[in-house]
């Protein structure tokens, strides 16, 4: 019995072992199948999560417009624009220009008798055009001014005031005054031209680069990425309001007392009547350059570049409770299809309107990774849309 008992016990042990092995194999098979199902479910989840029921691929394609621009604007970055009564100007490595009436195409502008130069800055007040020329090390040679669309140039002897080792970051005219932002010896400063010489605007030797300057109707506002400054041309001081003081990116004004600053956290701060008010454009999303679109007049639209990898821009309609327009939505300034085929994945350097025409809007883009144009124009037709007006959509220059 004992033997049998042992034998029976042994058989039971072996049977149990085989059952365990079988169960383990089944378990491995089950877990393998479960893993396969999980991978399949995850794949389907990822695929379906990327779907947008409101976006029509073939309709979007059918609404595309073939963009035919000039080769000058392919694979370049447009850093600034300017105009006088006769011409538009755009800053690439050099300054290019074309007549406003479209009678000729874009071409390189001869500055002070030469087309072989590097331009570090471009600005205009609508009548005078300023170009900062620099040497191969980006060190300022001089700022040149023309009042006759480039026929003659006047050297402004800027290096004598700013310094012989300064590198110009940008030029800009605000309220008819020319400002020069530059850096030297690792610090950043802002100067302005008082009609006779360049003088400090009151922002000197700061540690962060300056981004932009605007005139709000009563005083100037300038920003670096960590501070806002305001005041008169020669006496700008840091704004002590704490709210907008970090991650500043873009600056805009309606020239009637309102100032807006975009930040890297998705907020735009609006200053009116002495108080900063936050507007959430897209929470926790880095923003870019700002622009206040004044057409159509019935809508209050903030255009703000995206600081994230998909780039392009947002349109935020302040009318009512506010609404954000982005990829897939219908834009005020263009169709979704044209936006997706022109702006997507391109870094917006800024928006610009000529000093004498609020119905023309340009967007300046960085070169980006696509073989497309860097300058697009949009025209507002006040008579379109049954008199409500409509933008034409972006067209390559």
């Amino acid at each position, binding site marked *: 019995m004992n033997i049998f008992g042992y034998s029976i016990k042994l058989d039971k042990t072996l049977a149990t072992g085989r059952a365990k092995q079988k169960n383990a194999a089944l378990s491995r098979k089950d877990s393998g199948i479960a893993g396969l199902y999980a991978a399949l479910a995850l794949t389907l989840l990822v695929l379906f999560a990327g779907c947008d029921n409101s976006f029509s*691929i073939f309709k979007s394609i059918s609404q595309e417009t073939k963009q035919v621009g000039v080769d000058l604007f392919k694979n370049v970055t447009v850093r600034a624009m300017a105009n006088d009564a006769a011409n538009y100007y755009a800053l690439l490595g050099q300054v290019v220009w074309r007549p406003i009436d479209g009678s000729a195409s874009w071409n390189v502008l001869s500055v002070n008798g030469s087309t072989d130069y590097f331009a570090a800055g471009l600005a205009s007040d609508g009548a005078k055009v300023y170009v900062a020329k620099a040497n191969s090390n980006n060190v300022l040679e001089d700022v040149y001014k023309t009042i006759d669309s480039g026929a003659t140039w006047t050297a402004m002897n800027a290096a004598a005031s700013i310094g012989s080792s300064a590198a110009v970051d940008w030029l800009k005219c605000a309220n008819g005054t020319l400002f020069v932002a530059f850096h030297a010896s690792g610090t950043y400063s802002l100067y302005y031209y008082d009609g006779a010489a360049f003088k400090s605007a009151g922002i000197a030797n700061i540690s962060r680069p300056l981004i932009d300057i605007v005139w709000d109707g009563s005083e100037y506002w300038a920003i670096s990425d960590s501070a806002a400054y305001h005041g008169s041309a020669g006496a700008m001081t840091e704004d002590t309001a704490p709210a907008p003081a970090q991650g500043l990116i873009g600056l805009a004004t309606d020239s009637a007392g309102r100032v807006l600053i975009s930040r890297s956290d998705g907020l735009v701060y609006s200053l009116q009547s002495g108080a900063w008010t936050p507007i959430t454009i897209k929470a926790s999303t880095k923003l870019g350059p700002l622009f206040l679109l004044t057409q159509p007049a019935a809508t209050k639209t903030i255009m703000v570049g995206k600081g994230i990898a998909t780039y392009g821009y947002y349109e935020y309609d302040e009318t009512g409770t506010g609404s954000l327009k982005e990829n897939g939505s219908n834009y005020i300034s263009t169709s979704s299809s044209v936006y*997706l085929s022109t702006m997507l994945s391109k870094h917006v350097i800024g928006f610009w309107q000529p000093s004498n025409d609020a119905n023309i809007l340009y967007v300046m883009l960085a070169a980006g990774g696509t073989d497309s144009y860097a300058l697009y124009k949009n025209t507002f037709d006040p008579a379109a849309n049954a008199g409500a007006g409509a933008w034409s959509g972006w067209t390559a220059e």
Partner: protein
Amino acid sequence: MKKKLVAAAIVLLVLCIGMVWAQDSADPFAANRKKGSQSIEISPGGFLPLFVLDSNFAMISTPNMSPGAAFSVLYRYMLGKNLGVGGSIAGSFVTTVGGRTLFLAPVCVSSTWVFGTDPMEFDISAEIGMNVMRLSGNGIISPIAKLGGGISRYISESWSIGGKLMWWFVPELHLGSYANLNSYASFLEFSIGAQYHF
């Protein structure tokens, strides 16, 4: 441009037929067309957008797409001498006038009718499946149907080469209030391929 490419593809196929027709018509490869025979085919080629219909089945006058390329892998299991079933995965793209690129990646089940005398083989196949499309960051999953045929010639016991034409019908379907965005596109895939039989 499209017409020229289609004509060129057809001429290529006809030439292939003509060239291989003159070859030895012995039948040493019948073993590859019996129940249980399997094959894998790899086919790179071109991809032509043909036309797009809107939600009312009216032709969209400007599809705005240019020719692109396609690549497909097809597995086939023979159920008998002539009928095979299997599956395919493919990837294709076309460019648009605005400079964008539309990607299509269908996964299909297929049935194929194979006929002909070795070393020549003809097939007519139909496929249905799901198709993932991507355009400038936006995606759609849609059904897809393919219909077409091909011709191939055995170059060894295990390998055959040939070409095929496949018509892709790609309905882009939207749900609910977005049903007005429905559209129906069709494309022509023309490719050369190598098929391994085992």
